[in-house]
C-alpha cells in the first residue's frame, strides 16, 4: 500500500508539468496555430523560474517569472507567425533552439544552487487520512492549479461564446474573419496563453519537482506535451488522462530500477519517447478513416486582406 501510494504521488508530480504545458498548447492549436516551441518555452520557464525563486526566495515570484518567460518567448513566435506570416513549423523549431541556448545562458549562474521546493498542502485530519490523504490533500499548489486549469479550459472551450469563437478561428479562419472576428488578435491571445502555460510547466520542474536547475532539464517534455495534444484529439478531458498516463510511463522507469530488474537503464529511460511514437501511430491509425480531429486550419498561415 505504501509503495503504491508513493508511486501515485510521484506519478502526479511527473504528470503535472506535462499537463500544464499541454493545456496551453491545446488552446493554441484549437485557435489554429501550431507552436512547436513548447520545449524552448518550458526550458526558459524553468531557468527564469528558478532564477526568480532563488533571488527572491519566493516560489510564487519564481512561478510568475516562469510564466512571464514563457509568454515572452511565445510573443517572439507570435510576431513572426502572425505578424509576418512565417511558416509555423520552422519558427517553432527556432524558438526551441533559442530557448535551449538562452536558458543555458541565464541558468549558468544558478547551476548547483538549491532552493526550498514548493510547500505541499497540509490540512489537519484530511492529509493524515490513510492512502488518499497525501494523494488528494497533500500536493503542492502547481498540481491543484494544473487540474483547475484543465477544467477551466474545458468550460471555456465548450461553454462560453469566446470559446466557440476561438474554435471557429481554428477551424475556418477565413469565415471567422469574414464574420468580423479579429482572427490574428484571438490567435495572439491564444499563443501568449500557451506560452504562459508552458513557462509555468517548465518552472514546475526546478521549483517543485527537483529543487535545483540543470541545463536542458526539460529533457523533451515539451515535445511530449505536443504529442499529448494529438493523443488527446484536441479534447481537454482526454488530455488530462493522457498526461497522467505519460507521467506513469516516466515513473515506471524509476521503479523498475528500484526492483532490481536486469534491464538496461537506457532502455527504461527511452520508454517515454518510444511510448510517444507508439501512441502517435496508434491514435493516427484508428482515426484514419473517420478523418482527423485536428482543427482544420491548424498550422496554416493567415494573411488578412484589408
Amino acid at each position, binding site marked *: 500500500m505504501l509503495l503504491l501510494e508513493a508511486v501515485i504521488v510521484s506519478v502526479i508530480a511527473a504528470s503535472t508539468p506535462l499537463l500544464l504545458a499541454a493545456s496551453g498548447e491545446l488552446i493554441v492549436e484549437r485557435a489554429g496555430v501550431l507552436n*512547436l516551441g513548447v520545449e524552448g518555452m518550458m526550458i526558459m520557464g524553468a531557468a527564469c523560474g528558478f532564477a526568480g525563486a532563488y533571488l527572491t526566495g519566493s516560489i510564487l515570484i519564481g512561478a510568475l517569472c516562469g510564466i512571464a518567460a514563457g509568454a515572452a518567448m511565445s510573443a*517572439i513566435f507570435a510576431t*513572426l507567425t502572425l*505578424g*509576418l*506570416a*512565417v*511558416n509555423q*513549423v*520552422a*519558427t517553432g*523549431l*527556432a*524558438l526551441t*533552439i*533559442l*530557448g*535551449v*541556448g*538562452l*536558458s*543555458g*545562458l541565464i541558468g*549558468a549562474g544558478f547551476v548547483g544552487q538549491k532552493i526550498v521546493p514548493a510547500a505541499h498542502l497540509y490540512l489537519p485530519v484530511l492529509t493524515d487520512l490513510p492512502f488518499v490523504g497525501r494523494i488528494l490533500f497533500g500536493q503542492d499548489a502547481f498540481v491543484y492549479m494544473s487540474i483547475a486549469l484543465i477544467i477551466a479550459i474545458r468550460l471555456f472551450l465548450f461553454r462560453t461564446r469566446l470559446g466557440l469563437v476561438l474554435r471557429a478561428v481554428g477551424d475556418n479562419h477565413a469565415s471567422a474573419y469574414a*464574420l*468580423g*472576428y*479579429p482572427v490574428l*488578435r484571438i490567435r495572439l491571445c491564444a499563443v501568449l496563453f500557451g506560452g504562459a502555460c508552458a513557462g509555468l510547466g517548465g518552472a514546475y520542474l526546478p521549483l517543485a519537482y527537483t529543487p535545483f536547475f540543470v*541545463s536542458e532539464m526539460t*529533457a*523533451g517534455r515539451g*515535445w511530449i506535451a*505536443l*504529442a499529448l495534444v*494529438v493523443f488527446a484529439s484536441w479534447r481537454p478531458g482526454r488530455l488530462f488522462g493522457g498526461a497522467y498516463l505519460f507521467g506513469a510511463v516516466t515513473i515506471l522507469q524509476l521503479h523498475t530500477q528500484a526492483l532490481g530488474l536486469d534491464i*538496461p537503464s*537506457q*532502455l527504461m*529511460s*527511452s520508454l517515454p*519517447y*518510444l511510448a*510517444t*511514437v507508439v501512441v*502517435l*501511430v*496508434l*491514435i*493516427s*491509425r484508428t*482515426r*484514419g478513416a473517420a478523418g*482527423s480531429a485536428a482543427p482544420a486550419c491548424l498550422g496554416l498561415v493567415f*494573411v*488578412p*486582406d*484589408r
Partner: protein
Amino acid sequence: MRLMLEPRAERSALIAVAAPLIAIALSLVTAVILFAVMGKNPIVALDVYFVAPLTDPYSLGEIAVKATPLVMVAVGLSLCYVANIWNIGAEGQFLAGAVAGSWIAVSTNGSGAGHWVLPAMLLLGALGGALYALIPAICKVRFGASEILTSLMLVYVANLGLDYLVRGPWRDPHGLNFPMTADFDPVATVPTLFDGSRVHAGSIAALVVVMLAAVFLGRTIMGFEIRLVGAAPRAARFSGFNAERLVLFTFAISGALAGLAGIVEVAGPVGHLQPGISPGYGFTAIIVAFLGRLNPVGILIAGLFLALTFIGGEGAQIAMKVPLDLTKVFQGILLFYVLACDSLIVHRIRFVGMTRKPAHAAP
C-alpha cells in the same frame, strides 16, 4: 495607421538574394547588444567570434571540419523541407549512422582487417541513418502519424542507445572506464588531407554531396517532383505524383546523408565512438538549410558561416569566459531573422489606415 502584410504579385528577386545577408547583419547587431548587456566589449567579442578564426590556418581547417557534417546533413534536410516534409530528427539519424558504421570498426578492432573496412563503415553508416529515418517516414505514410514528433522522439532514443553501447558492450576494456570505444584502427579512419590540420576527406565528400544535390534538384524528374510538391501540392496531386513515395524517398535520402555525416565524424575527427560526438549538428543543420535558402550552394556557404560561429564560440569561451550557450542563442536568433526576411520575399509590409469595419462587429 497600422502595419499590414500583403502578398506580393511576384516574388522579389532582389530580396531573395539579400534576405540571408540582411538576416546575418541583423543577427550581428543583436549580438552586439547581447555582448554589451553581458558586460563584454562588443568590438572585441565580434573580433573573437567572427574575425579571429579566419586569420590562422588551423582555425580555418577547424571551420572546414565543423562545416562538413553541417553541410551534409543540411543538404539532406533541404530536400525534405523543399517538399514541405518535416524531418527534424537528423540528430538521431546522425547518431544512428555513427553507431551502425562503428559496429564494423569495433568488431574488426585490432584484427588487422584490410582496406575494405572504411568503405564498409561508410556504407553501413549511410544505411543505418536511412533506416532510422524511415521509421518516422513509414509511421507517417502507413498510419498518418506526425513525422515532426516521431522523428524528434527518436533523437532521444538514439542518444540513449549510443549511451548504452559505449557504457556496456562496446566499452574499451583498457579505457579507464570512460564511456567510449577503443580508438579505431587506421584502416577504419577517414584520412586527413593536410599535415597539422584535422581537415579530412569527408570535406571533399560534402562538396560532392552539394554538387550532386544541385544537379538532382535542378535537372532530374524526381528533383522537379520535390520542388513541385512543395510549391503547389494540389497541382502535384493532380499530375499524379505519389506524395507517399516522396515522403519515404526524402526521409531515406536525408537520413542517409545524416548517417554518413555521423560515421564520417566518428571515423574522422573523433576517432572513436563516445557520447557527445555531436554538438547538435542535426539541429544546427536545420538553421543551415534555411539560411542557405534550401539551395545546395547556399547551404555550403551557410554551413561555413555556422561552423564559424561554433569555432568563434569556442574561442570566445576561452578568451572571454563567455558561456558556450551564447553560440546557440546566436544561432537561434539568426534563424528567426532568416525566417522573417524570407517572409518579405513573398509579402510586403504596408501602412494602411483603419478603414476596415470595427473588429468586434456583431456577425
